[in-house]
């Protein structure tokens, strides 16, 4: 499977580096290695969700209890979680680190992924949620650190969009 193991490891290490010890997730192809790494790490609590909105609540609870967390999801998972993001994170001013695999952009071969990707950034912007793309391996650690810093200082959700160039290696 041409999902980048090396770059998934970079993202995972960066996430741990900013103090994340609890991750909630639903899988999608680009997330398989990240979720496996969380599952295999005895220092990480992995919560397998039924639907992404739950993860917003779980992260809020973890924050209340003094634990840093992150959500792993895809574009449609983010879109599914909107009510929780608005009704918990934004309303109550709770930090939330969202890692969103950004499907549906240039190079997308799956027709069913092409709509969700189109709406992710406009929705993030409409909610005034700070976001950035993770595209180059060198940027992963510093951008993750800055994202977490802003989430904690602004008590807000932030989003990192994991791009195709980072997560996917085209078979040669």
């Amino acid at each position, binding site marked *: 499977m041409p999902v980048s193991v090396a770059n998934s490891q970079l993202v995972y290490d960066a996430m741990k580096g900013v103090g994340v010890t609890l991750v909630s997730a639903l899988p999608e192809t680009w997330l398989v290695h990240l979720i496996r790494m969380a599952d295999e790490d005895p220092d990480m609590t992995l919560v397998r969700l039924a639907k992404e909105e739950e993860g*917003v*609540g779980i992260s809020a609870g973890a924050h209340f209890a003094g634990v840093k967390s992150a959500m792993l999801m895809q574009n449609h998972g983010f879109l599914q979680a909107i009510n929780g993001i608005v009704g918990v994170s934004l309303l109550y001013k709770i930090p939330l680190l969202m890692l969103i695999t950004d499907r549906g952009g240039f190079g997308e071969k799956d027709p069913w992924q092409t709509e969700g990707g189109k709406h992710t950034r406009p929705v993030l912007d409409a909610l005034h949620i700070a976001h950035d793309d993770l595209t180059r391996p060198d940027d992963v650690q510093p951008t993750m650190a800055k994202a977490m810093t802003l989430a904690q200082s602004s008590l807000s959700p932030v989003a990192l969009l994991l791009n195709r160039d980072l997560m996917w290696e085209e078979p040669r």
Partner: protein
Amino acid sequence: MKRIDCLKAIYPELEDCAVVTIMGAVAAELYSLGHRANFFYLEHAMGLASSIGLGIALAQPGRKVVVIDGDGSVLMNLGGLTTLARSRPKNLVHLIFDNETLLSVGGGAPGGYKWFTTATSTGTDLAGIARAAGFPKAQTVRELDDFEEAALDALDGGELSCIVAKVEAEMPKSFLMDVHMLENRFEFPRALQQPPRDRAALRRPTRIAKEQPTTIPALKSREE
């Protein structure tokens, strides 16, 4: 059975717990018994109270977490029951007040008239759903004595449990809550910074006065 009487029965037990309630009547009635910093009232995002409780329970396994939910909210996040069940936090008690109506979002009216009922009014069994989702323990109670016994057992017990309490669709006496959402949001994590005490050291609740003395041994031993 009235929601407020159930809340009165467990109120003294909630001292060291992390308590997460849903919005509306449940929040207002718990507040009316005396606000504490370890109570968090989720005033929106129906369905997510149990998810917040799960996050706390996983982050602080040494603290008892009590989620006080309602049928309308639970029905908005049935998948959350499966996530709770598979995570199986030993320190979480899920209380669900089931009045078979969306009372607090306009589905109820004074006098108990229900014009927007939930599916529990037509037979949906939330305790059955919780059991089928994988909760090790889930039961429905209809009498105050049974609620109190089940709730105290769950609070003292060491496994994930769910109690569905069938209650009247009665409005609270007042919805007034003199604690702002954000004040509550900031005091709550501060309260959770205090280490919980041993539950055995906590005093037992004052029993609600009854006309007939109880003969249930489990309850008798609590009174002694």
